[in-house]
């Protein structure tokens, strides 16, 4: 209403019109055709699913999907001619693929929540598993020791991977040496190292040198290998966003290259660097294979990073999956839910911080 009272004095003859967007106009026959093409196959398939003995998977693949293709093809042919048929096939397949992926994701998250909540409770977070065996009821025991282990291992990995990763990014964006393309290439190649190979590598060093055995340090080293490329690449993207005026300004004031980087460029990119670290942690925190090989497992809480084998959440899940005791399996789901929440928090933090950073750079 307000727009009309505002427009009336300016345009008494009604010359100015709101845009009609004629290309948006869909004839009623088109809407009808689409509706029929959606409803008819669904109704037929639902009827077969509920009132015939044919298994659901066959109804879906042999009856519903081809029927949907044919119905959409006919609808497209009736409204748009022969050329519409190829479009309708693409659209049906595209929507089908999307539905498939979303169903898989929802099934994953849904089962995590439904089955994980049974085990999740305060003592599940802080107790360890010293006196726990697979048949112990859920009132006792938890992932406290695994949580401590994961935090310790991730901390060690970060202590190693973050400085090296940031230095790699600084080399690419600030030092800009001759080897930049090669460094980029090797960082990319390193991101392709499978996690199990990272674990094997640390294990080989441990076995062949005898410097250390399965412990938090070895686990942290294996994690660092996986974390480094993520930190380096994200930090590189972030440092590229820092305007050159800051660098030239600092250099013009007489500061050295090192001072420029340490006192001007890196502080300016602080939140972005934190994002890079968070993404690196989120990348590795769920990796199981390297810890299985390099860090081992333990039922008790271990704090000494150079001592004996240490527990971690992924390995805790791993050991409780294929166990014939429902309570142990419930613990696996509970730990999986806790891990997923942890990862979701890390990603959300990284995204929130990342958004602030980009906003200020512009």
């Amino acid at each position, binding site marked *: 209403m307000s727009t009309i009272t505002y427009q009336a004095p300016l345009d008494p003859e009604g010359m100015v019109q709101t845009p009609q967007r004629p290309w948006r106009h869909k004839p009623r026959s088109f809407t009808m055709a689409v509706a029929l093409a959606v409803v008819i196959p669904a109704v037929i398939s639902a009827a077969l699913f509920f009132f015939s003995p044919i298994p659901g998977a066959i109804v879906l693949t042999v009856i519903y999907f081809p029927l949907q293709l044919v119905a959409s093809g006919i609808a497209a042919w009736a409204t748009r001619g022969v*050329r519409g048929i190829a479009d309708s096939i693409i659209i049906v397949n595209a929507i089908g693929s999307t539905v498939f992926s979303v169903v898989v994701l929802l099934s994953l998250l849904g089962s995590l929540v439904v089955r994980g909540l049974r085990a999740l409770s305060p003592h599940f977070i802080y107790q360890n598993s010293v006196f726990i065996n697979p048949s112990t009821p859920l009132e006792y025991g938890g992932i406290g020791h695994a949580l401590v282990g994961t935090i310790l291992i991730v901390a060690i990995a970060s202590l190693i991977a973050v*400085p090296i990763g940031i230095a790699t990014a600084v080399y690419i964006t600030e030092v800009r040496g001759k080897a930049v393309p090669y460094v980029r290439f090797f960082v990319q190649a390193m991101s392709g190292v499978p996690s199990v*190979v990272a674990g094997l590598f640390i294990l080989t060093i441990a076995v062949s040198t005898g410097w250390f055995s399965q412990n938090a340090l070895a686990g942290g080293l294996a994690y660092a290998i996986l974390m480094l490329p993520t930190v380096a690449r994200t930090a590189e993207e972030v440092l590229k966003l820092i305007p050159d005026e800051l660098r030239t300004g600092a250099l013009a004031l007489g500061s050295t290259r*090192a001072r420029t980087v340490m006192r001007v460029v890196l502080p300016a990119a602080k939140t972005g660097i934190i994002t890079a670290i968070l993404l690196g942690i989120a990348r590795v925190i769920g990796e199981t294979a390297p810890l299985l090989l390099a860090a081992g497992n333990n039922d008790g809480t271990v704090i000494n990073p150079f001592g004996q084998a240490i527990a971690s959440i992924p390995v805790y899940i791993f050991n409780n999956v294929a166990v014939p005791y429902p309570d142990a399996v419930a613990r696996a789901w509970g730990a999986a839910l806790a891990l997923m929440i942890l990862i979701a928090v890390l990603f959300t933090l990284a995204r929130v911080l990342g958004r602030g950073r980009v906003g200020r750079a512009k």
Partner: protein
Amino acid sequence: MFSRLVTGAAFTSLIVLAGIAIFLGVQAVSAFQTQGLDFIFSTGWDINTDPPTAGIWGMLYGSVLLAVIGLVIAVPVALMLSIFMVFIAPRKLSSVLTNLIDLLAAIPSVIIGLWAFYILNPPAEQWQQLLNQYLGWIPIFQNTSQNFSGTPFIAGLVLAIMMIPIITSISREVLSRTPPDLVNAAEALGCSLWTMLRYVALPYGRGGIVGGVMLGLGRALGETIAVFFVLKLTFETNWYHIIESGGGSIATLIVSRFGEVSGPEELNLLLAAGFFLFLGTIGVNIVANLIVNRTGRLQK
């Protein structure tokens, strides 16, 4: 001083890669000394002989077979999904989907394995039974034992679920960078969605999509834990019976034998197997990155 320090750190990735190649390569050499060429061309794992005899051909082949099954499922789904997100869906739905796909990519493989073991496995066994019942005359769907658990098909399906987010995110990005001028011009000339995709978007994004598929392949070859839970590891080469129980995978071999490793000789064999896994994945990954980088440069 500063720039030397930074330059040194920048070459860490090279040092680590070389270190992996050398340390695992040494193990592979000593495995060849005890096993001969049979180590890669025969199939078997017997730790009771002295020295233990081992051949990883079935595992090497199995890794490739699983990856191929995964690709056959994942590539069409991921491609169609990215076409939906870029050219069909409204912008809001598209950004919601992007977040969902990123979330799928962030789920650790141990959780995917847990889900696959308890949620995906029971219906998947039924699907395979139906495949065998109605399409059993096709050689790949033969199953003589009527045991449908731990098959390459389920493992490939799980790998496909893990590859879909990787392939989708890269092909979505490549397709969305198709110059809007070209898309608009095609539509103004009367192209339908299909002809626009066929003659403008897909040729433009082809390199990037191939690179994304290869990145997914690299992940599938190296995937360990999720496959561990859904594949029954057998030391016989399962050539093409994809819904027959039993198959192989290098990465899974390492984890499943490591838990009960008998001694330094067997550990040496596992490390040597890891060397071939490293060679395969790093090779695929390097080629993939070269392709993706080249298309990235072309677009600038």
